[in-house]
């Protein structure tokens, strides 16, 4: 393996941050759609179920694409990680993909289907959202645990472990925790997107109150569990800069608390933004805890990076494409910002 130049090492870190931004944007944007899908499993009224799907009709595709962007950055800049991690995560990723496929067609075909098939597509949409969230969360947990690579004398290390190595109590837990967090994000989305008088908004408020506590508990459990099993996390969190990590945690908890307060005050957009702030802080906290590992104890940022990261491609992407992308995504969300009623299900979205 080659050693990167100083510029390349710097660029690899910048790409790593860009990867983090895409993943966090995905969690913030599509997370809400996924969570609303999980929530829809518990909604009885078919018009309301349809309206949840209708409320995201204009934006779900772009939201989901942030995951594809993250995949693209991983493949383009960290191909050694992409090729080995995806082999390691073969089974959970296959399940995520089946979920994404089912969800996409359920969303697109819902308004064309006959009533019987509309019911069916509502179930597919809900279950697929649950599957994507759970197995996606499980993949993250499994990645935190790292995986085995062979050590060839020359060339790239490959994944050599079995297909079921991703299974562990911890990875199952991160799957569950992802479902809890995304459901919270989903009910906040429902609150913000439905007209104030809609009954579903009141249901969503009750859910927020309950899931809020579950979300705090799952953050705490995940942190304690990580500290117990990951030496790299322990070393940072209980090292000489322990107070910085403590601060991260406290600020995150304050943000989550604000979610509840704003929901009670009917400030729906603020609640979503506080949730995203909490996700951002926890996500960034986790990224820096892992630093310099991209996959703990498996790939460092530099070992996983393509030997050909260059200033040209980086500048083109960050200076040109990414800002434009964020601009039109923002415009699109702005166009579809209005509140909807459950009757939206009738209007062919």
């Amino acid at each position, binding site marked *: 393996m080659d050693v990167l130049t100083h510029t390349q090492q710097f660029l690899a870190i910048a790409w790593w941050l860009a990867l983090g931004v895409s993943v966090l944007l995905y969690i913030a944007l599509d997370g809400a759609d996924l969570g609303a899908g999980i929530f829809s499993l518990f909604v009885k009224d078919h018009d309301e179920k349809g309206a949840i799907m209708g409320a995201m009709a204009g934006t779900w595709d772009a939201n989901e694409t942030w995951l594809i962007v993250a995949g*693209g950055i991983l*493949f383009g800049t960290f*191909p050694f990680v992409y090729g080995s991690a995806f082999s390691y995560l*073969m089974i959970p990723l296959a399940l995520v993909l089946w979920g994404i*496929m089912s969800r996409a067609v359920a969303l697109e075909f819902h308004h*064309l289907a006959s009533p019987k098939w509309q019911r069916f597509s509502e179930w597919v949409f809900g279950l697929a959202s649950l599957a994507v969230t759970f197995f996606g969360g499980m993949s993250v947990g499994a990645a935190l645990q790292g995986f085995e690579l062979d050590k060839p004398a020359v060339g790239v290390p490959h994944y050599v472990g079995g297909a079921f190595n991703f299974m562990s109590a911890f990875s199952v837990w991160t799957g569950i925790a992802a479902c809890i967090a995304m459901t919270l994000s989903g009910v906040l989305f429902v609150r913000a997107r439905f007209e104030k008088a809609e009954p579903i908004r009141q249901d969503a408020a009750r859910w927020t109150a309950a899931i809020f506590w579950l979300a705090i508990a799952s953050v705490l459990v995940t942190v304690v569990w990580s500290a117990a099993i990951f030496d790299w996390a322990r070393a940072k969190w209980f090292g000489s800069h322990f107070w910085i990590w403590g601060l991260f945690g406290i600020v995150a908890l304050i943000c989550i608390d604000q979610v509840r307060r704003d929901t009670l005050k009917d400030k729906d957009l603020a609640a979503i933004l506080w949730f995203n702030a909490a996700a951002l802080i926890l996500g960034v906290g986790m990224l820096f805890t892992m630093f310099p590992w991209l996959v703990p104890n498996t790939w460092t940022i530099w070992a996983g990076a393509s030997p050909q990261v260059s200033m040209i*491609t980086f500048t083109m992407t960050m200076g040109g494409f990414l800002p434009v*992308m964020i601009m039109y995504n923002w415009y699109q969300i702005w166009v579809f910002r209005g509140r909807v009623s459950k009757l939206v299900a009738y209007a062919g979205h």
Partner: protein
Amino acid sequence: MDGEALTSLITRIDFALISSLHILFPPLTIGLAALLLVSEALWLKTGKESWYRLCRFFEKLFIVNFGAGVATGVTMEMAFGILYGRFSQAAGPFFGQVLGYETITAFMYEAGFIGLMIFGWGKISRGMHLFATFNVAVSSTLSAMWILVANSWMQTPTGVEYRNGIFYVTDWLAALFNPNAIAAFPHMMLASFELSLCFVIAVCAWFVLRRRHVALFLTPLKYALAVLVVVAAAQIWLGDVLGEQTLESKPAALAAMEGHYNTNHPDGSVDTDWQIIGWPNAKGDGLAWSISVPHLLSVIETKTWNGPVTGLNSFPADQQPPVVLPFYSFRVMAAAGGAILLLALWGVWLRMRGKFTVDLAPTHKIFLAACVGVVALPYLAVVAGWWTREIGRQPWIVYGLMRTEDGMSAMSLGLAIFWLVGFAFFEICVIAGTFWFLLKVVRLGPDLETPIAGEGHEHLGELHVPASGHAEQPEYLRPV
């Protein structure tokens, strides 16, 4: 066949399935987006309501197809790393970078504007909407460009150096503008337009045949047939250019496509026969039987009467691609391309004789039925073309540098079967659903009643509340 060979075969079939089922959708997205742009622009320019109705109608078909394209496309991006992890690691510096650019500059670009195009009617201004449609057309074309550049590089890997299991890019321009891409990208673009024109022709012809909205659908039918003549002819020419390119860069693939085993006859004279059909012998070193036309192979490939074309037996046995599949899929593609051109010519001939009037057109039942049936041909041609291309490259994943089996992830037999069965199930559901809903939208026909969407903030009509419903339910106003 031992376990390892079987696993390797199933892993190949896994990826073949994922890519074959994905390529059914993007060509229509690419071509139809451009046609939607044309009809929307014509509506804004001429003010004719018919163009607006056509645009909205075909847009409904577009979105059904698009959903399926996204569903199967996301799968493909992930499948590289999952099924071909070693290839992804080795080729990542170039191939991954190109796919990364595809997601950033095209996939995301398209996703951003497609929501506006489909759901933005009445919410954004007409100019902004046209701009959104324009961007969807441009971004889908960009997407095709990146994908074809990446795939063509696997066919003609220029500008790289393969060392220590990694492809290092030594010359970005040479890698991006590799020789195969120059012909393959236009070939795919024309295929997309040809497929979309056939799609539009089939839908329009069906309505004319059933005497529904004849006046509305006759105009696009006329235009599409006229454009198809040019596109289909150009496609045949481009296909030939790509064939010559293949002869130059991948002679073994061309020999397999043509079932051409020996450069010379046993008596030393050049073998110039073009096989119409044939079947390899048991030993696999020649054809057991064939029907052939002398000199045609030399004429097609070398543009001379007796020019030699390198036969398959000139390559070591372990570097020869399979013959039957590329041989027949190439012929299916070429025959489909020829048949499409004939149909287009038939249509133009009818038009020149003045048969395309509201009264006369529906009486040409055989022609209209042929127009409806023709939609199957471009789909067949696209899949067959990709099979020719990908199987012809074997046993290489990156031609001449990396063999396919060296690019695979380590996988057990059970896991390979799990993938095959799972993805076959989900993808077939996606395709069945797409086909069903395309038919349903066509059957329902265009919506000619709803008022034309304006510039936003408007009342979109009332919902009829069921008799048992609440009287106080407000009339529906789409929020903006």
